[in-house]
């Protein structure tokens, strides 16, 4: 166990931007965070990686609808395998705003992997245009 072996050296590896984008394209569930008026908010969303952007659906009257106004956000996906002793995380930083271009909306509606996290009329699409995409993988010393 890592906790019982604190002296051993960790193996952190920065992931390349290309690798981060592959991971973004091959997953569908993440979390978006931003600074709301009463403190930082983190909410889970299901997303599609479309045209280099992270896109997700929400309802026009929900909390996430705040992001139709251009807002600085972070978006994170991660995976951890305790048995194998490794994990990774990817962090996207950028600006979220409502998708208003018709051709984008037509494509996004057809992306059937964007199952909304909650129910309701979720006809608003928000896209995060990345300013930076970073990630790292970590491997416990005992892992092979």
């Amino acid at each position, binding site marked *: 166990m*890592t906790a019982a072996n604190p002296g051993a050296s960790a193996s952190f590896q920065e992931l390349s931007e290309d690798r981060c984008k592959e991971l973004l394209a091959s997953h569908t569930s993440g979390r978006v965070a931003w600074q709301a008026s009463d403190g930082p*908010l983190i909410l889970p969303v299901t997303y599609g990686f479309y045209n280099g952007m992270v896109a997700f659906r929400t309802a026009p009257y929900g909390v996430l609808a705040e992001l139709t106004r251009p807002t600085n956000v972070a978006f994170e996906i991660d995976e951890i395998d305790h048995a194998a002793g490794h994990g990774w995380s990817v962090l996207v*930083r950028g600006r979220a705003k409502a998708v208003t271009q018709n051709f984008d909306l037509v494509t996004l509606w057809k992306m059937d992997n964007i199952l909304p996290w909650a*129910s309701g009329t*979720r006809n608003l699409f928000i896209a995060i245009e990345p300013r930076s995409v970073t990630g790292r993988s970590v*491997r416990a010393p005992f892992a092979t």
Partner: protein
Amino acid sequence: MINEAVGSRPSDSVVRTLSAAECYELLAVAAVGRIGFVSPTGIEIIPVNYRNAEKRVLFRTAPGSRLAQLADLDGHVAFEVDYHAGDFVIAWSVLMHGEVSRLDAEGEVLLSNLRHPLLAWPGAGHTLALQFVPHDISGRSLMRRA
């Protein structure tokens, strides 16, 4: 507040706001959470392994890490935990706001009494145990009928 689907619910799924007691129960069955905060370089989201005990969240980090620096400032953060079954038949999320700090005496006792060991995110060197004490907790669940 985070129950953002209120207003229109198709009959095949139910979104429910969870009570604080239900939120704490769910915290006890999950193991990975994400800490969100504002740093000088932007908004951060950092995944951590955690255990909760007595309405506190305990996790490990490396000395000198961004989370350790945050603890020295009693930094205000959001702490989020979520779960969904692969097909979204069941999903839930819990969101808390509060402060990350070094363990106080009570936190040390809680850490040593944990039934299951507190693991770090993989990779060793995470020798510093920290605590997150929430001011507020909210959550929601989603159940979709097959």
